[in-house]
């Protein structure tokens, strides 16, 4: 097994895994939309042990997380969203889903300054609920009635990503003696979003990322 970032060429087999495992399916363009808008956020688990049948075999996808940033967050807070997560039945109990999620969450903070990540899960899906709440620490936000096409309700969940932000900042501080110097020249080596620096940074162009980050930061301080 290999856990790595999604590449466009993985998409046919991601779509295949999705069609095998889940009732919520998407056409290829929707996967492309994720892969080309937020290439840092989606991860795959690949069965590298599988012997090749032809020279043209593509890496066999046994699990994936398809993630995005919310483009126009209704709460005005920059955050990520899990569009789809699944692991083949034959590859469960290896912690793949958790590992995929953790990689994606890290990138959400690093690259796009996400404050939290949200997702929906079927109210009957005990295994997934256990993963999200017990293993990953998601909070159950609310229930959305008849969210799924077959009429089932969804729990809407979210996970605050400030722990990851703090970890990144600590790591940056420990390797960075220049801490506290003006923005633009020095500052964090690793970190795009540091609370201290944020307020000095001009509102991000076009993407509107920074404005939203700052708004939420002010709530914490």
């Amino acid at each position, binding site marked *: 097994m290999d856990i790595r970032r999604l590449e466009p060429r993985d998409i046919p087999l991601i779509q295949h895994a999705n069609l095998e495992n889940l*009732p919520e399916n998407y056409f290829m363009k929707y996967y*492309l939309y994720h892969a*080309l808008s937020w290439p840092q956020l989606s991860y795959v688990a690949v069965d590298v042990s599988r012997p090749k049948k032809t020279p043209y075999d593509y890496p066999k996808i046994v699990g994936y997380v398809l993630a995005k940033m919310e483009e126009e967050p209704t709460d005005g807070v920059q955050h990520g969203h899990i569009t789809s997560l699944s692991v083949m*039945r034959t590859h469960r109990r290896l912690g793949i889903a958790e590992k995929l999620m953790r*990689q994606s969450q890290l990138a959400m903070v690093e690259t796009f300054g996400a404050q939290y990540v949200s997702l929906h899960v079927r109210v009957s899906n005990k295994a997934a609920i256990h993963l999200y709440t017990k293993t990953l620490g998601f909070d159950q936000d609310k229930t959305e009635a008849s969210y799924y096409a077959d009429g089932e309700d969804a729990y809407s969940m979210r996970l605050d990503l400030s722990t990851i932000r703090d970890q990144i900042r600590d790591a940056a501080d420990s390797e960075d003696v220049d801490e506290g110097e003006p923005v633009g020249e020095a500052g964090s080596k690793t970190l795009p979003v540091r609370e201290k620096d944020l307020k000095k940074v001009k509102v991000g162009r076009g993407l509107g990322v920074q404005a939203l980050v700052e708004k939420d930061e002010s709530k914490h301080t």
Partner: protein
Amino acid sequence: MPQPLSSKENSLFRQVIRNYEEKQYKRGLKAAEQILKKNPKHGDTLAMKALIINSLGKTDDAFALAKEALTADMKSHICWHVYGLLYRHQKNFEEAIKAYKFALKLEPGSPQIQRDLAYLQVQMRDFQGYIQSRTAMLQSKSQLRQNWTALAVAHHLAGDLAQAEKVLTTYEESLKSPPSRTDYENSEALMYKNSIIAETGDYQRALDHLESIAKHNLDRLAVLELRAEYLAKLGKKDEAVKAYRALLDRNSEHPEYYNKLADVMGLDGSDTSARKAVYDEYAASNPRCDAAKRLPLDFLTGNDFREAAKLYLTLMLDKGVPSTFANLKHLYTDPFKKETLESLAHDYVKAKESQSGSESPAGELKGTPAGLYYLAQHYNYHLSRDLAKALEFVDKGLELVPENVEFHMTKARIWKHYGNTRKAAEIMDQARNLDLKDRYINTKTAKYQLRNNETAKALKTMSLFTRNDSPGGPLSDLIDMQSIWYLTEDGEASVRNGLIGLALKRFHAVYNIFDVWQEDQFDFHSFSLRKGQIRAYVDMVRWEDKLREHPFYTRAALGAIAAYLGIHDSKLVMNGINGSNGTVDDDAEKKKALKKAKREAQKTEREAAEHAAKQDPNKPKAANSEIVKKDDDPLGLKLASTEQPLVEATKFLLPILQFSPQNIDGQVAGFEVYIRRGKYLLALHCLNAALAIDATNPVVHEQAVRFHQEISSKLASLHAKVAEVIKTEFTAIDASTDLKKYNAEFLAEHKDSPAHVVSAVKIQKLLGEDQKTCEKGLFGVLSLKTDNWEPAAEALGLLLQWRSSEAEAFRKAADETWPEVTLFNPPPAPTSA
């Protein structure tokens, strides 16, 4: 020349354009009519009207009208632009590009036409044209960074790395103040430039550049990975070691990092204990890490392997990881590892069984059941196959955990390997019933039903998880969702059921999905630049360039080619050109099957209609809002009645030969198509390619002999140059060879391989051997004592094709040799339905 309008009509014309853009087609049409009433020859209005009626689905009328518009006003850029848009809509990109270019000549400053042209050029990979367009777009709006990046992408895709880099640098140098740290577009543009420098192979410069931009870059992982890669390539070992360690701290489940780390640490293959120590370090620091524990099994040998394997196996089986076997089976190519794992698994089960009271919680696949599960899969695997033993372990496991889905699934797989598709499908369905909410097991059940040729049942199974509210029912959802595996399996099952039209229908559906996938990239030519995501876009473009290399394509295309070859050959039979083929019984069977398929299609339609009728009328569904095109050939009868089956086959063939030339099945299919078309050079090309891939392949032997035979009779009638090339290029069998003798030698050499024997017998028949001898040769396959029953199935097919009186006897004998193979089972007693 724009034809002048009165001011009132001018404002009406502007309204037409607005209506079109806002998709208010009826209103737009009305306004256009109003203008045309007074100015019936107004080109621009005619053109806009054409565009609107095209959007209403009347493409032919639209083209006629657009031509009328052009006749009325040849010098109008609007008329030419519309003409291009209509072609674009028809996906005739070459003609669209021509029309846009005309329009642009008449209106050089139009950003809209320029854009439309540029995106088509890159879609068509006309990179020189794209560079021109992008240069013009940059000149008209040079303050936009994305226009600079776009021109760099154009040069990059055209292969001019230096020019691409230069364009990016020029923009960077024009910046007066450094962009914000959170400016993603900037962060990505810098990384993009770095990837271009790396592509030139100058890693020192790439590293220096990376160091200069790394600090605030938002794509942290890419920075870390590239830095490690450049350091390693430059031989800066100490730094590279650090870099790879940093990556492993981030993600210890990425095997490449371990391999590269070992490389830069100078740990070659010989010192396995030093290598293992590296992995142990990460296993210790990440207790939940799998890779660090499992990967050393790849390089450890002897006792070291046994110890590590024992630890790993015990850990996994205690934990109850169902993929344990899947994660280890690649080691089975090493006989020692295969035997070691087998004995370790046995030891594990024995040890667990002797510990009383250590039973795992009911139903869970932990401990003893996990060990039994491993062993069942071990004996089911082709490198260690003993199906009887595999069944034994499955049954033992089912005694402990009778409701376990995994054991049922494996049991179904074992029956599949026996060739008993009927039992396999039944047991997979039992597994499905144990977990009705899991789509994975549902999918597997449908697949096994298709393998057992139960297409209607399979669709019903699928429908438990598809959206069934569209008029086409579950099938149309599967097509919409691009479920290639289902379409391909359903097509292959239809071939086996003799429903060639239906099979072609499915294979064409797959072909069309690949067309859609190619078309899907179109919107990203503009979208990605707006998003500022460049590297991912370039990756995508390069992947799209060889999209049809995917085995998904090849498999469906091979199915279609075989079906078309069958249609071509049976046409020859009907025209009495060839010997007899296809019996009366056969035809009756096919008619019956077709009737059944028709009934099923009608039933599906009826059910879907009923379902739609039951829908809550307050909840409008997509079906109401879209124009639903009714399929006028649901059974593929039109496809199957083509007059040009070989032309159709070639359409499916070309992408295989272009993108998957190393696929021997593709070359074999290519030979079959080209030899029937009398294209001997192309046939020879395929034959030689196949020989280069695998000279011992039995079918390639058949083709070589057939080619020799065909050529010796045709050579005189061929063009002298063609004949000359064939003489020099066809070296597999010397011109003077006695083919009978050649084939006999082949048979003698491969007498123990059933597939080769079948091929040799086919050639005997072709070379005029009498049927009795050939039949005897085929019976020889039965005495070869092998688990591989497939060549015998082919032999049975040949006997039926020859209308041999021995066919039934052969079937009976095969049934005795392989009693579990459904194909050889006695035909079911006729039912009165």
